[in-house]
């Protein structure tokens, strides 16, 4: 147990060390390709989403799930890699327990620093942010809960005056999920535990949402409310159509607001497709297109492997997730 924890810590700390703020890339980027085209994290539970709401882990359909994601944001100017592994018990009738680890890295295309008169200073910013989360969860009947702890750090390359070491932080999340026959809903809170200034990076936030099945579709909505900084609420709505047992289609709309500004600061439309094999493997692709020009599209591709049958342990509605190997 000691070695994996040390490896996670090393993974984070090699990105940076100085505690200075929370404008961190790794703190706010959602990872799941499926969820980004589903209307938020509540459409389809995913091992890569447990940092946002660790209660999702207990609804995992099979005993073990491994997920990877590769995102290309801003027209490929930024890359996000994520890896998650989660396991859940399914033997006990009364309680089900789960544990997961998720690591991610955000790297942005480097750029040269120029001064006020346009001259290059010789410095180059090479931003890299890393994050690691450990989550545990429990489920009893229709109710699931979980907690997660995450560490994140950011660095900017070899800059003068010590500017290459970015902020770092420790964060905790607690969440719950309740599932009934045709709908489920959840909520979670993420808070920074370190004494760094809380602010613009979206470190502290509340998210809530739910999904309902109707007419062969799954309708999902979610809301993320930052608790500090200039960012305002971020709302998403989406629909998933299970075309067959082998693949489904997704579409979503997202809009974000700024505190103190009445109009939406930005909106996007998302489309996705997911494939599944009867061997327990799944592939997801999502395209995010901003409605305001200039930002560039985001492409996400994800893959999942699942092992072991525990579908009988999940609440009724969540059993209508895409069934791997069944």
């Amino acid at each position: 147990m000691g070695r994996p924890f040390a490896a996670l810590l090393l993974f984070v700390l090699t990105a940076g060390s100085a505690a200075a703020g929370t404008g961190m890339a790794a703190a706010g980027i959602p990872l799941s390709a499926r969820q980004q085209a589903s209307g938020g994290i509540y459409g389809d539970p995913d091992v890569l989403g447990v940092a946002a709401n660790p209660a999702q882990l207990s609804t995992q359909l099979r005993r073990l799930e491994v997920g990877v994601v590769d995102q290309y944001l801003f027209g490929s100017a930024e890359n996000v890699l994520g890896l998650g592994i989660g396991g859940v018990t399914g033997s006990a009738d009364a309680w089900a327990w789960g544990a997961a680890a998720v690591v991610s890295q955000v790297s942005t295309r480097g750029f040269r620093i120029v001064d006020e008169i346009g001259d290059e200073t010789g410095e180059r910013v090479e931003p890299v942010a890393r994050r690691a989360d450990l989550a545990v969860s429990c489920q009893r009947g229709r109710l699931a809960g979980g907690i997660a702890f995450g560490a994140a750090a950011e660095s900017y390359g070899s800059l003068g005056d010590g500017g290459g070491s970015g902020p770092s932080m420790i964060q905790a999340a607690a969440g719950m999920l309740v599932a009934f026959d045709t709908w489920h809903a959840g909520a979670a809170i993420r808070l920074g535990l370190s004494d760094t200034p809380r602010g613009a990076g979206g470190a502290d936030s509340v998210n809530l949402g739910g999904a309902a099945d109707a007419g062969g579709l799954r309708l999902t909505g979610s809301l993320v409310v930052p608790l500090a900084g200039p960012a305002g609420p971020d709302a998403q709505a989406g629909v998933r159509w299970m075309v067959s047992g082998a693949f489904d289609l997704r579409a979503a709309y997202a809009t974000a607001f700024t505190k103190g500004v009445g109009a939406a600061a930005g909106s996007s439309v998302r489309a996705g497709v997911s494939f599944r094999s009867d061997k327990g493997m799944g592939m997801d692709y999502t395209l995010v297109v901003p409605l305001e020009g200039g930002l560039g599209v985001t492409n996400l591709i994800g893959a999942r492997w699942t092992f072991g049958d525990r579908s009988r342990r999940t609440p009724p509605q969540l059993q209508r997730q895409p069934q791997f190997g069944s």
Partner: protein
Amino acid sequence: MHWSRRALFGVVLAAGLAAPAAQAFPHIEAALAVEPSVASVGMTVNVTLSITNTGGDPMTLVNPFLSITAGDNLVSIVSNPWQSASAYLGPGIALSYTWTLIVLAQGTVNLTGWAAGYVNGNPTSFTSTAILVIPGPSSPPIRILNNRLRPGKTATVVLHGSPGKAVTLVVHDQAGRPLGPIGLGAVGLDAAGNGSFRFDGTVAGNRLATGVYWIVASGAVSAKAPVMVTK
């Protein structure tokens, strides 16, 4: 006293084509500003050298100088600052001198201004630099000057796009989330398609935390550029 362009460069040449090095009188500061800092061909711009004395030692026989260190062929000086024969910069006093330039062609003009005189009987000078950007058809749609933004400083977002149309700038974090607009709203580009915004690292009154952000232009310009904000 008026300084002709020829006379100005005569002074610069005599000084070895470089502004004299300032000596250690931290209570006297020079600041060179260009307004507007992004211009189009045919426009006139004002270049102002301000000298401020916040200490106790006066500066005597103050003379202002302006040197175009790059892009000399892109502008022409049409008027020089009025200058008394023996300007005196006493404690708590600020002097300013303005040159008017007309823009002749596209490119980038680097300007160096300095004030020479005497402090405690020692000859000395105080120097500052500024840039004038004149975008053209081949200019990038967005460019950020001073893109490592420290507290108390401002970055200049230089834009080039569809002439006469409006541009809106929004700051996004690295998750792609829009944090808010820069300024009070859309700003129109001039007849040559040029414009600029000042960005002080705040959005809706909030100072951004240390990190890398994207400044995204939409409207007459559709482009983005990164900026690093430092606490």
